[in-house]
């Protein structure tokens, strides 16, 4: 029987946050790209929380933007509230979070995709991978059509063999009742891919009109809104914002939950998948933190086109009747009308240690993957991987070497290195504590860190690149000026310092020295700095940070130097660990399993000791010398 047969460069499976970035990156880099989704109406869907960003996730979005991705621009167009978190802390942990209008977010992203050249969108389930001699050559759809391609990127999110569960109700659907993808897992397993089963959950959605907000605390957005994208003019997005609301669970809520634990599929064993510790269900919180008498609950709008409210902090898989009683026990939710029930979702994902840092499968050439399929959680983590997988898929076709960010360059680097190097037994969430060089990886300097790379890749246009170079130059010149500008000990200087709670000067000091005082800053010193040029806030913020925290930044840079030494030492792909003498058995097994690409990566594998690393270094050098002699 004859079937449809097509030829493309790239097949992207899935149109969630990973799929969108992957498809856009490939198409923008000139690849003929087709993106499959089980529902075109669900492109860039936010099936869980209605926000983008947050601690460390905000960093990811800024980095995606700095490399030429879409997520930052899209949330700037569709947010309804915005907040910079941790402003009282150091600049490295400032983090942007915006509430999205979910439907606008989805619609807006869909328009971008539709208008992108080289990009086709197709509503169809991909059922099978076509792999010949460990090389991916195409995919087969459920309808039997064959799409021959040079590379494919799997971004299947939570759809693979998905099952939604609450109480004794279990439905074989993806999130939000969408069709699950039930065939691809088998094809992956057939090709030797090792699968895990993970679980996550979402809370109920409640009708706004049934909520008594007078019993809750209002949570407003920031007065001055900072955009996610470096390309968004801050002035263009200052707008009226919606509020979120804070309330708390109480002993009664916890009692209802405890009494019905036996009916929870989590505790009865119906759910097999491993859930995230970061985002526990309310029943999980009550059990694990039994000493806590209350938990925070945030009520957040799903958008401005709907009255549905997201009940943040109370995800659950308890039965429907228990859910109703549980939500009703929370102040302000006594008469809540539940529009959508809370549920847990189980899905297939992979053990990401099967991937290279480029996100290509080690064992199947041309097959890439990104997002929740790789065992991560969160829209931002997914988008970041999607972008990198997309870039590397295109580069593979172009015959260029893979684009890899290391742990000292970006949160994206930390994310991917963790995913492919460590054993993740739960959905992986980005956290600021995972980034060991975070003082350098700030959200405010993502453009300086990454936009040059984005330009080299081809996702950043010349105009944006030139703008960055100007910014860098301005920062450099201004730092040099304040380091050389001496402030005397005149009376007005002493008065000025005194008025800011700062001790007077015995002898002349530079502006830079004063900026380093905790009670002062670049901005405050404007009064005693008449020679100051007119500069954008973007520039002056950098000047302030780079001077104020100079000592810490220097130290971190020295750490990075040490780290890079090991990262630069590559392990040849052809290495035979059985041939390396004196490795401990555990190390040998782990190294064989992970196939690390550098000594640095090898050193991060649990079970590989410093002595094993020494042995490995000597062995590699020996082999190098031997080859040279031949």
């Amino acid at each position: 029987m004859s079937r449809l047969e097509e030829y493309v460069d790239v097949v992207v499976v899935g149109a969630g946050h990973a799929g969108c970035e992957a498809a856009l990156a490939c198409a923008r880099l000139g690849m003929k790209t087709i993106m499959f989704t089980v529902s075109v109406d669900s492109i860039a869907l936010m099936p869980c929380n209605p926000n983008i960003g947050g601690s460390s996730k905000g960093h990811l979005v800024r980095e995606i933007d700095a490399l030429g991705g879409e997520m930052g621009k899209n949330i700037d167009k569709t947010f309804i509230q915005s907040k910079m978190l941790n402003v009282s802390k150091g600049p490295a942990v400032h983090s942007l979070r915006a509430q999205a209008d979910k439907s606008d977010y989805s619609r807006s992203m869909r328009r971008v995709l539709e208008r992108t050249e080289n990009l086709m969108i197709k509503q169809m389930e991909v059922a099978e991978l076509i792999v010949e001699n460990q090389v991916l050559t195409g995919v087969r759809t459920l309808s039997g059509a064959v799409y021959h391609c040079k590379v494919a990127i799997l971004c299947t999110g939570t759809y693979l063999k998905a099952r939604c569960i609450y109480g004794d109700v279990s439905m074989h659907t993806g999130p939000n009742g969408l069709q699950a993808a039930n065939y691809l897992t088998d094809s992956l397993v057939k090709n030797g891919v090792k699968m895990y089963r993970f679980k996550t959950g979402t809370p109920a959605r409640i009708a706004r009109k049934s909520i008594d907000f007078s019993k809750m605390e209002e949570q407003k957005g920031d007065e001055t809104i900072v955009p996610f994208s470096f390309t968004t003019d801050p002035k263009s997005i200052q707008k009226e914002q919606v509020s979120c609301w804070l309330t708390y669970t109480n002993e009664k809520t916890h009692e209802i939950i405890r009494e019905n634990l036996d009916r929870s599929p989590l505790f009865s064993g119906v759910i097999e998948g491993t859930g995230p510790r970061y985002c526990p269900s309310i029943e999980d919180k009550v059990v694990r933190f039994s000493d806590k008498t209350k938990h925070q609950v945030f009520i957040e709008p799903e958008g401005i086109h709907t009255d549905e409210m997201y009940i943040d902090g109370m995800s659950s898989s308890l039965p429907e009747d228990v859910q109703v009683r549980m939500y009703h026990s929370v102040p302000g939710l006594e008469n809540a009308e539940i529009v959508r029930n809370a549920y847990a979702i189980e899905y297939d994902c992979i053990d990401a240690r099967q991937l290279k840092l480029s996100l290509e499968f080690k064992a199947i050439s041309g097959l890439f993957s990104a997002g929740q399929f790789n065992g991560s959680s969160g829209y931002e983590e997914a988008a970041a991987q999607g972008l990198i997988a997309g870039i590397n898929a295109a580069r593979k076709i172009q015959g260029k070497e893979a684009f890899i960010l290391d742990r000292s360059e970006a949160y994206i680097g930390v994310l991917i290195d963790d995913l492919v190097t460590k054993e993740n037994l739960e959905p992986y969430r980005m956290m600021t504590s995972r980034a060991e060089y975070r003082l350098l990886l700030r959200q405010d300097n993502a453009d300086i860190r990454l936009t040059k790379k984005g330009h080299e890749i081809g996702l950043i246009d010349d105009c944006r690149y030139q703008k960055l170079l100007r910014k860098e130059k301005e920062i450099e010149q201004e730092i040099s000026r304040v380091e050389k500008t001496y402030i005397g000990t005149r009376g007005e200087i002493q008065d000025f310092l005194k008025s800011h709670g700062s001790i007077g000067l015995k002898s002349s000091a530079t502006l830079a020295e004063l900026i380093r005082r905790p009670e002062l800053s670049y901005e405050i010193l404007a009064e005693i700095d008449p020679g100051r040029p007119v500069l954008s806030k973007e520039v002056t913020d950098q000047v302030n940070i780079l001077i104020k925290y100079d000592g810490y930044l220097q130290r971190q840079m020295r750490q990075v130097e040490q780290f890079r030494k090991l990262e630069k030492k590559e392990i040849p792909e052809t290495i035979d660990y059985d041939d390396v003498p004196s490795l401990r058995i555990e190390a040998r097994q782990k190294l064989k399993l992970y196939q690390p690409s550098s000594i640095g990566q090898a050193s991060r594998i649990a079970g590989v000791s410093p002595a094993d690393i020494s042995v490995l270094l000597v062995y590699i050098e020996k082999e190098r010398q031997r080859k040279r002699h031949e």
Partner: protein
Amino acid sequence: MRSDTIAAISTAVANSGIGIVRISGDQALSVVDRIYRSKDGKKKISEQPSHTIHYGFIQDGDEMVDEVLVTVMRAPKSYTAEDVVEINCHGGSYSVRRVLDTAIRSGARPAEPGEFTKRAFLNGRIDLSQAEAVIDVIHAKNEFALKSSVSQLKGSVREKIVQHRKLILEQLAFVEAALDDPEHISLDGYAEALKQKVKQLLEQLQELIDSSDNGRILKEGIQTVILGKPNAGKSSLLNALLQEDRAIVTEVAGTTRDVLEETLSLNGILLNLVDTAGIRITEDVVEKIGVERAKEKAEQADLVIYVVDASTEIDANDREVMNVLAEKKVIVLLNKSDLIPVTTTEMIKEVIGKSVPVLTVSAKEQTGLDLLEGQIRKMFYDGKITFNDEIYITNARQKAALTQAKNSLEKVLTSIENEMPEDFYSIDLMDAYSSLGEIIGESVGEDLINEIFSRFCMGK
């Protein structure tokens, strides 16, 4: 930040008391500049030509540590192909260790096992054919270092370090949880609380550092077991040894086994005395167990002191134990010489062998103890008792790690005093945590993430 210049004791010091401290790396010459003084006080090692030898002194501040000969070998004409300085020490094992210690405090770091050889190879100084041997050396030395750094660590020290790490990890987890979830967890007033905790920790770390000079960190020294039947006078012997005008280094009740440990110094030779449980139990039932314990202890010991009650006859049990000990480094003490002797030196020698030294002492009257001391010294310098030098360098490594941890915590204090935001504490808290981890052989891994999740209810 750790410098990349390494130092270690490169020759055996146990037997001769003469040893060489070797320093290699970019900073080798300047490290030695900081601790070396020539006779006229004018010579600088960094200004000396390659392959020259210089007489002088190693100074620790104003204090003279040892009279030395310093050899300068500049890169690339040295063993490692880096700048290398070798310091020949003459003042015995104690001063060799002091010299190493001084070098480490002046900017070198303790070498990893086999690191000189590794550098030599990676810098192309060792022939390819030797590479396999290099790997074996690293492997073997590391196995030993691992064993010694972890198993030689005294139970009580280990416990303290585990506690300190726990405290640091808790602080880290709190800060990090608050940074990740600022809407749930507040850091208000935390800086002051942390300051107090860090100050206490600093004091405790200082105590550990001070004690490391006395070998309290590692069970450094000759592992010595005192065996004997109940009432043979073992305990009074121990007391007598300790009561004499000798440095009592430590007194720790073992945490994992029912063993009492004492370290005492005999004119610079450290004895690590282990008083086994079997001996302290006095019931007859124990006799059989006693023999087995004796065997077991003797296996592990560098030196066995077997105490016999001279006022009673040796019985079958004594004979059995002595037969076992005949193969070991053993000194037999005929105790209770103040009473009428029933058992004589000759009778003992008949059982255990002619070459075994048998000394007549009275623990009660404290006579003959000088003979014991002399005998131990003799056996030590004759090379009959030895122990592995690697312990010295391991101890230096532990001490360096403790100092590193202390420096990191001092930086935390500075951050607090300079009113830095809380997220700046983490970098140094984490450094302190991982430095302490090196001592007990534990890496950081996912500790922090796990601690955060186990203690804080995270996630909106």
